[in-house]
């Protein structure tokens, strides 16, 4: 694995919504095969960051390069091609609730790989469902699934296109500790088996510690620190310490 190849490069990125300045000049480099966790309080623009990376939002200034292409400057066709290499797991899972699990997984596949036969499609669906351990849910509706199952199917729907990059938005939010551990293991499994580079947006420090090779702490629109989990949390900064203490139940 070539750890020096930059997959995502962000320089001086800013984004505002009206008078709200959310991102105030962010720099980040994510290398091939690396899992980077972006931590921070709710509303600090963590999700905005990955929406800009996937081209759902446009930055106000700065550059965002994904696999060497500037996402906000490329044509729509080029963006669509780039998106085939990016998997986005939504906080709410965003499963299509009028479709069964099979149809959810089929949806991006049949529209992006039009030459596949019905057997190939079924095989690909079975394969990703096996990978996330939910083969039995194939004919269920999203409303019949638990929160953890929905997250897994959401991840499976992105994996079916074999992405090079995975963007996870709060993968463990709203889940019990045991299911959260399962999701953390799944993130690591995806990194290993699909050879993905990932950004994990979370405020769950256990998730970050378990899954990330690098951690970036977002505070007031800027990265306060970046490095290993230990490096980032070896600090005197009161906000960062509070973050740590709350997650690991350290009484003051």
């Amino acid at each position, binding site marked *: 694995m070539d750890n020096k190849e930059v997959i995502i490069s962000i320089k001086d990125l800013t984004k505002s*919504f*009206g*008078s*709200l*300045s*959310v991102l*105030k000049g962010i720099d980040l480099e994510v290398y091939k095969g690396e899992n980077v966790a972006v931590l921070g309080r*709710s*509303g*600090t*623009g963590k999700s*905005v960051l990955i*929406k800009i990376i*996937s*081209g*759902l939002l446009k930055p106000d200034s700065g550059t965002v390069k994904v696999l060497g292409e500037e996402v906000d400057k490329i044509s729509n066709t080029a963006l*669509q*091609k780039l*998106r*085939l290499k*990016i998997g*986005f797991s*939504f*906080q*709410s899972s*965003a*499963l*299509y*609730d*009028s479709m069964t699990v099979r149809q959810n997984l089929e*949806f*991006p596949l049949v*529209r*992006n790989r*039009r030459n596949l036969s019905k057997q190939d499609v079924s095989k690909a669906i079975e394969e990703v469902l096996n990978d996330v351990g939910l083969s039995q849910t194939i004919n269920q509706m999203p409303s019949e699934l638990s929160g953890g199952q929905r997250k897994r199917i*959401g991840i499976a*729907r*992105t994996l079916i*296109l074999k992405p090079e990059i995975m963007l996870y938005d709060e993968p463990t939010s709203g889940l019990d500790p045991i299911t959260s551990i399962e999701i953390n293991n799944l993130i690591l499994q995806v990194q290993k088996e699909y050879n993905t580079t990932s950004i994990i947006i979370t405020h769950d420090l256990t998730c970050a510690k378990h899954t990330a090779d690098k951690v970036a702490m977002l505070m007031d*629109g800027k990265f306060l620190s970046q490095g290993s989990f230990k490096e980032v949390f070896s600090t005197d900064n009161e906000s960062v310490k509070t973050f740590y203490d709350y997650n690991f139940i350290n009484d003051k």
Partner: protein
Amino acid sequence: MKTEPDQSTPPPRIKYLISEKIDGLFLSLYDVHKFIIRFFKEAFAPPYEFKEIINQCYQVGYRSLPLVSLTGFIVGIVFTKQSRPSLSTFGAASWLPSLISIAIIRALAPLVTALIAAGKVGSNMGAELGSMKVTEQIDAMEVSATNPFKFLVTTRILAITFMLPILVLYMGFVGMMGSYLNVHLTEQTSYTAFFKSAFSTISFLDIFSSVFKSAVYGFTIGVAGCYQGYHAENGTQGVGKSANSAVVVSMFLIFIEEMLIVQVINAIR
């Protein structure tokens, strides 16, 4: 976004060309115009979503049949019943089938069906797309390199534009059957005599104009419903608002279009 506003630099005051509301109205109209242009581009560009178009035709057309049947039948009976005394006063009760056919084919069937569709289908489109928007399902389609506009919007607008004329013709038929039932029970008029009299005053232009204007109404309902749903925001409140706006805007536009199309058709006639 709950981030505190940047206190160091006060936000610049927004300058409006006329006023906030009027500028907003023109911006919305421009947005709708772009939405319609995009619809035509997506509708004619491959790949086509035939399966979803057929599914939407089923949802829009077949699922509306019970309501359209009931409404059409009652409109036929009630309109005949209410018109009879006035015509009888002038000794013209025999003109009842002609009057009813003109009223139903030219005006009542297109207008009533369109209003039913605005309420049933338009609100459904606004609510369904609105909830997909606020639960990030549309974003999920977008990031998986598929085209949510083509799959969700184009198919729905095409389906209602195709299906509304069919529903209008069906309602015309059911309305005439309701009228025949009333005439038959009251005046013992035969089926043949009723329909011979009814169709003696109906021209090809009447049927063509009904089909044409119902296609226009269908397109209007589709655009209003999908536009409102596709641009929904602010959670469940936004979904309710987009469903409501879809119905209000469609009905408002249908009445305006009715007035304009009737003027044009009358000028041709």
